[in-house]
């Protein structure tokens, strides 16, 4: 096989099998460190041997066998073995796959361990990307703009806490499942937003992170197919990511939803996301669980992707969806988003009044000033709009968004009365 073919095979197997291998080893050896290192060693061995010997007929099986052998070798090398490790060595075969449904997948245990609420959010994100996503420590460090040694220490410390504090390697009980799943989804959504709304660095969108978050979202959906919020988050990420190509202009400027070239949206992602939202709507219509925040946000995005143009958007439905979200989460950020939609429905003056009511709590939040600036501009209140744009630019880290805001500010007419209705 050509070298390129082998490399491609290794990349594919890594993507498909990494989490499964780490999760299976973690259960058998009750040690995340060993699981992670043995899995990494197995892929290193593949990179060395496959170009020479060819890709084995069952690459995933080869990796699992090799990784298991590496883990056993590691324990054998250590002179003093404790009872737990000896027990792990005595198991000749993995226990037969349990037939209790996807919830028993080892990867799900790994998900809940990596996202355990006793770990800091930073540690949860790092562990999830390393142990489930298979990103290298260097890749994760670059993604979060920290030194590789800092990231390595963060991961080591988290694994040490998991071991010392006896953080369990299991799927939480039914009573705790809802809350723990919410915690897992928060980690995945944070990774997605870190990529999509890149607050640091030179890239407007960090595709490595958005792709990884979507991959994790797909994995969670395959593991918890009946969880509405898991489905909702995947749909939300797909529908948002579908607009990626239209979101930044050739000159590197952020393009707002209103100005985007809708023909550049990824129709396959839109269709996939929409199908997931439809699935949840059917469940709700049949008397199932009420939609949570991710399902509602996904539904908002369906309204946008359904509209042939910004003008044709069903804003009353958007406002109604935000009203539903407010009942679940009466936070100022949700109120801000509702106010922006309300401005489209009832006019900028109504929207502005709502936005201004949030000034005290969200004064340091760039999106508030972006919304204010836009509404003031539309009302022809140029001087106030300019001040709001300045404040928004000051608070925005994303270079594409800064460029967009600067252009909008510089296009303001110097002063004067409203130029008429929009």
């Amino acid at each position, binding site marked *: 096989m050509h070298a390129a073919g082998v490399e491609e095979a290794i990349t594919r197997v890594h993507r498909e099998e990494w989490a499964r291998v780490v999760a299976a080893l973690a259960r058998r050896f009750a040690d995340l460190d060993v699981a992670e290192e043995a899995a990494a060693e197995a892929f290193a061995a593949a990179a060395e041997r496959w170009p020479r010997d060819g890709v084995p007929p069952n690459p995933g099986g080869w990796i699992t066998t090799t990784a298991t052998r590496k883990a056993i070798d590691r324990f054998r090398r250590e002179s*003093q073995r*404790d009872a*737990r490790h000896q027990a792990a060595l005595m198991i000749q075969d993995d226990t037969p796959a349990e037939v209790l449904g996807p919830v028993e997948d080892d990867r799900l245990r790994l998900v809940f361990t990596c996202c*355990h609420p*006793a770990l800091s959010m930073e540690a949860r994100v790092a562990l999830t990307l390393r142990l489930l996503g298979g990103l290298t420590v260097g890749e994760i460090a670059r993604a979060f703009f920290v030194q590789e040694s800092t990231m390595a220490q963060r991961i080591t410390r988290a694994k040490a806490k998991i*071991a*010392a*504090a*006896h*953080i*369990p390697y299991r799927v*939480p009980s039914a009573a*705790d499942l809802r809350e723990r799943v919410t915690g897992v989804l928060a980690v995945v959504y944070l990774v997605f937003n870190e990529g999509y709304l890149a607050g640091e660095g030179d890239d407007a969108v960090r595709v490595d992170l958005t792709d990884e978050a979507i991959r994790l979202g797909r994995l969670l959906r395959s593991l918890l197919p009946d969880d509405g919020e898991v489905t909702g988050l995947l749909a939300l990420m797909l529908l948002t990511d579908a607009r990626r190509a239209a979101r930044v202009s050739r000159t590197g400027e952020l393009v707002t939803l209103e100005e985007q070239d809708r023909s550049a949206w990824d129709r396959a992602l839109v269709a996939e996301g929409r199908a997931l939202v439809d699935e949840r709507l059917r469940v709700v219509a049949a008397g199932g669980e009420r939609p949570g925040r991710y399902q509602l946000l996904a539904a908002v995005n369906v309204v946008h992707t359904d509209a042939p143009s910004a003008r044709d958007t069903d804003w009353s439905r958007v406002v109604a969806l935000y009203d539903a979200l407010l009942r679940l989460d009466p936070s100022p950020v949700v109120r801000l988003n509702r106010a922006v939609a309300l401005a489209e429905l009832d006019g900028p003056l109504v929207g502005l009044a709502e936005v201004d009511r949030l000034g005290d709590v969200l004064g340091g939040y760039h999106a508030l000033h972006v919304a204010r600036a836009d509404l003031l501009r539309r009302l022809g209140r140029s001087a106030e709009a300019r001040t709001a744009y300045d404040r928004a630019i000051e608070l925005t880290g994303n270079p594409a968004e800064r460029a967009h805001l600067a252009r909008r500010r510089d296009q303001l007419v110097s002063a004067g009365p409203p130029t008429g209705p929009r």
Partner: protein
Amino acid sequence: MPRYLLSVFGPADPTEFGTYPSREEMLDAFAATGAFNDRLRDEGRLVFADGLEPASTATTVDGQAERPTFTDGPYLETKEHLGGFWVIEAADLDEALALAAEGSRACRGTVEVRPFRTEESVRALTED
């Protein structure tokens, strides 16, 4: 089974009702904590639990030199001090955290959960 220390912290200068704003609330917290302790004991999870006298009654001792030195007051100068603690046995951190939440509600204080070293971790520490 893993052991955990559940520590409760409170203000360094307690009022006449300990760390509680009134006598009534103090008595309520004592009763709830007592009931929680009884339950831990019945379930076989309790190793030890008790409340401490105020930090101002502490004496700090350093016995590392030829003659020990004694200093009036707690070792750490902080605004909040250890006020009481439980030592419990739990299957894992999830169980320990659930018990800590109950204990926190009973005694009306924030609880820090910290695992004790195990034979295994001490062995890992002493091996090279």
